């Protein structure tokens, strides 16, 4: 018999044999009458970079604090690596957290800050020194070991916080808005650094963020949260290309939404008729919606195009006439706001493959807005 070679999947969530590393089971958290987290179930796999994405009050931070042990669920259970962690206090969990404010100990040097966690576990002095030096090298802060936190810049403090939470080799690292206190330029570089470090150390990361760009660039999967429940879980591409609801479509990126009624429903396509647009919306992938159902069709601005030529109007599919109201020139691409004759305004983004001076489309031009049959997504919720 040939032993089957164990396949290392890049997408463990698609492998039915893979055990979830963190299992959140029907967790609810109430503060008085306020329900912060409402019956959330979630599986997170080993070595994932998982993001909880949502606005303020979406319950993402509360969920993270329940993973850390600072809050206990009102209902439900949390398992980490198969062990029930629901009632375990924070100091006894194999979980470390990087705080939004970094929460460095101001009266200790960088070295002492990082060594603090190992000291609590009574790790021998030699080993402590070695591991602290190692992790400080990892975040490139070796020369700053003797400094106090207030002698460091924001970016350096952030890396001390990361080193301090990594040095104990936790099973799970929680990051609470890790980049929010950095300026834009530093944020981008640090995002890549974080992903690199995560790959090097192989620790499972769970990050909370309100910034969709951050979540998209760093995560293996994203859970979009809204008022205490999870609206959608998926890879960045899934969440962006196939939003499951109006909320997700609107929260991540820009989107044009057309409300309408399903008039044709076949295995290979769907036809939607909308009062907001003077053509039929033809979508060439099936969706489980009955004829006559009220739906919304979501189309991303970059999946539409404007041009001065082409047929449009009643009877045509996925092409409609409008007037250019605004043009925002952004360098590598331009955004057009086109007012359709029905009164609806659509947003179209086009790459500037030609020089701006050669741009044929200008304000108040009559244009045809069109998109391909695959571009639309049918939303029922």
């Amino acid at each position, binding site marked *: 018999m040939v032993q089957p070679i164990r396949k290392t999947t890049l997408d463990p969530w698609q492998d039915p044999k893979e055990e979830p590393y963190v299992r959140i089971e029907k967790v609810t958290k109430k503060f008085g009458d306020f329900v912060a987290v409402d019956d959330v179930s979630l599986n997170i796999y080993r070595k994932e970079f998982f993001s909880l994405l949502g606005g303020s009050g979406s319950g993402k931070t509360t969920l993270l604090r329940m993973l850390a042990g600072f809050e206990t669920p009102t209902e439900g259970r949390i398992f980490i690596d198969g062990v029930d962690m629901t009632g375990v206090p924070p100091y006894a969990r194999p979980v470390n957290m990087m705080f939004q404010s970094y929460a460095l*100990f101001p009266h200790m040097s960088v070295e002492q800050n990082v060594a603090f966690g190992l000291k*609590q576990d009574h790790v021998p002095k030699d080993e402590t020194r070695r591991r602290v030096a190692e992790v400080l090298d990892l975040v490139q802060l070796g020369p700053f070991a003797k*400094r106090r936190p207030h002698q460091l810049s924001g970016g350096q403090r952030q890396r001390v916080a990361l080193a301090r939470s990594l040095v104990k080799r936790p099973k799970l690292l929680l990051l609470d808005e890790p980049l929010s206190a950095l300026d834009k330029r530093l944020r981008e570089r640090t995002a890549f650094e974080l992903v690199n470090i995560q790959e090097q150390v192989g620790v499972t990361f769970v990050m909370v963020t309100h910034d969709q760009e951050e979540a998209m660039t760093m995560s293996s999967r994203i859970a979009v949260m809204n008022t205490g429940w999870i609206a959608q879980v998926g890879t960045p591409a899934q969440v962006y290309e196939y939003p499951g609801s109006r909320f997700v479509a609107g929260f991540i990126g820009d989107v044009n939404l057309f409300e309408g009624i399903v008039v044709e429903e076949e295995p290979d396509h769907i036809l939607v008729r909308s009062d907001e647009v003077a053509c039929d919306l033809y979508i060439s992938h099936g969706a489980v919606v009955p004829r006559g159902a009220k739906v919304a069709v979501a189309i991303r601005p970059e999946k539409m195009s404007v041009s001065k030529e082409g047929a449009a109007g009643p009877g045509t599919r996925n092409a409609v006439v409008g007037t250019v109201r605004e043009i925002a020139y952004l360098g590598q691409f331009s955004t057009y706001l086109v007012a359709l004759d029905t009164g609806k305004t659509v947003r179209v983004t086009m790459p500037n493959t030609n020089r701006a001076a050669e741009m044929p489309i200008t304000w108040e031009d009559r244009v045809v807005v069109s998109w391909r049959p695959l571009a639309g997504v049918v939303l029922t919720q």
Partner: protein
Amino acid sequence: MRRPNFLYMILALGFAFLYVPILLLVIYSFNASRLVTLWGGFSTQWYASLLGNQQLLSAAWLSLQIAALSATGATVLGTMAGMVMARFGRFRGRAIVGALVTAPLVMPEVITGLSLLLLFVSLEDLIGWPEGRGMTTITLAHVTFTMAFVAVIVQSRMASLDESIEEAAMDLGARPAKVFFVITLPIIAPAVVSGWLLAFTLSLDDVVISNFVSGPGATPLPIEIFSSIRLGVTPEINALATIIVGLVSAGILAAGLWSARQERQRRRDEQLARQGAGELMPISSPPQDAPPH
């Protein structure tokens, strides 16, 4: 140029109002005459006779002991109370605890003193402790009324302390008690120290409450001074007051110098941090004291 002159005059008047009496007290402590209000030439005899005045010196020693003990007790209890008020959230009866902790701040001292006296007397009747009135009762009384000040100082410091620092320590494996002693206490230490100093000062010059709860064997300095003034101020008291003023001024001067040094250090640190901010990778920056090749 008239307006600045006018302002300087007002300033001088203000300072004079505050410090001329103290200056007079210091000058008259070197008075040769026995009469406090009449200058009789320079002399240091009152300092010498102060050293011989056993009653006054032992009162001063007793006062210092009481102040140190009661300030320490008040700091421990007040810090605990401040922590509870700042960190325990909205527990049942929080408003009542808050009001009770801060009540001694506004309570007339006469009432505090009288009620404590009644407490001590009935306690002695019931369980035989404390025996009579003396150092123990004064210390206890001072703890009760100075504790409120410490609690308020600690509470306000705790309110401005980022709670996630304590959470981070707990997250890294420290139990709550350890978090308090290793993280919280060192950070709020300046507030605790100033609470102790305030309690010490309040205890040192308290007359009203001490008057109620002191006994024949134990007379703290303020009461001693008060009762001897009734027989007329002797320049000895001026001498003692001068020594105390001298000590306090030295203490304030030292504290001022220390905080000025801290401020300079802080500015240097800020500059250091700003220099570091420009470079993302510290390793790639050229070392400043690299030897020439």
